[in-house]
């Protein structure tokens, strides 16, 4: 764990499938569930739509953590998109951690439209894990001129 700059807050990008997890996030909101405000949500049609590049590129551009969330297995709006995603991310997560990305920067979850509580819990967990790791440094691309994230 590195020393954390003052007032640093983790920046986490969340790719949520529009049928389950995004609706789950919506439910957490309308139920007035309090959860960590560190996630920026990107709505995608399906977790199977998430190109591994989205994850790698988010990390490269300075996200401290990435969360991908979709429907539970068997509940995919498109029948099987999340099954494909599951295989892909199993490989990608292992590869990223093998290459030296800290364990705990990339997260995956299944959150259904009725699981507002679970969504809040997952986001809080992810935020705390990333907070412990501190700001992302590996993989982040800095401008050669002024050192800021490109």
């Amino acid at each position: 764990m590195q020393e954390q700059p003052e007032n640093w807050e983790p920046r986490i990008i969340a790719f949520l499938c529009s049928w389950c997890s995004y609706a789950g996030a919506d439910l957490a909101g309308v139920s007035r569930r309090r959860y960590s405000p560190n996630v920026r949500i990107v709505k995608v049609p399906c977790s199977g739509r998430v190109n591994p590049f989205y994850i790698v590129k988010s990390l490269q551009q300075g996200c401290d953590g990435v969360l991908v969330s979709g429907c539970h297995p068997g509940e995919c709006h498109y029948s099987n998109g999340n099954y494909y995603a599951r295989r892909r991310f199993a490989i990608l997560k292992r590869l990223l951690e093998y290459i030296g990305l800290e364990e705990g920067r990339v997260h995956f979850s299944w959150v259904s439209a009725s699981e507002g509580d679970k969504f809040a819990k997952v986001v809080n967990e992810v935020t705390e894990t990333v907070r412990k790791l501190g700001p992302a440094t590996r993989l982040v691309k800095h401008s050669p001129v002024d050192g800021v994230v490109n």
Partner: protein
Amino acid sequence: MDLQTKLRQEARKLLEEKLVDVVIGYEDEGAPLRTTPCFITDPQDVDRLVWNPFCDHNLARYLTARKDKAAVVAKGCDTRAIVVLINENQIERKNVNILGMPCGGIVDRKKIYNHLKNGDVREAVLKDKVITVKGLEFTADLMVDDFLADCCLSCRHRNPVLCDVQIGENLPPLDVKDEYKKIKQLEESTSEERWEYFRKTLSKCIRCYACREACPLCYCQQCFTDQNFPAWVGKTTDISDTIVFHIMRAFHTTGRCVDCGACERSCPNNVDIRMLTKKIAKDVKELFGDEAGLQLEEKAPLSFYNEDDPQDFIK
């Protein structure tokens, strides 16, 4: 009769009987410790074909763009690449005639250069399993087996998995104790150590894309590195861009890489590319039980799923 003579006979027969339009094989280009791919269309030229432990290219690379009927000289790993190409509908089985070569391993000439400590090799003569290398001020006898490429040391498919004509007898399987030994060693180190290792090896990359060009399975008409709208990966040699390129190139070989080592041998800067592709092959085997290129009509592991696939990493 040695394998090279047999190979030439088969090639001559194929061309004379007009069973194929071209024979893709290796020829001696005159430079020591090297061969170069050659394309033979005239039966009179078959004597240019050679077969020796310097035949290190994966000639499956040349099959994807062809419209004609080609015979190709293929080692065990090369035949696996051909199987993947057929399974991915990149080539038609009937358009390729595989001259399968049982292969005892090929020489990694970078290992010889390292051994000679930059001694300039002017001449190399192979006899049985001994290479006599000559430079300006030295002569040395080297054993082929001491300088085999890394992928050959852990090879489990020395014989062709698919061929039309096999040249020579099957070789006995190599006694490989742990195919993934190097990967496991690295996995056991800490995250910092692994990051340091990859940062170091990948910082040598000059983004020449030789690995991509040498890979028989990198056949995309437009590679993600060449796309600029959206520009998925920066084209600079900034370490972050380079690592992202290698992560994604390796990822694209998931369940397809046959570990022929063509990428690593083609690298001018000795980047340990196989440490990425082999890791993925290991994970695919562990998670989904698949191994690429062993049989026809096999699906790539990311193109289908099982309902009970492992998901302990998902919250």
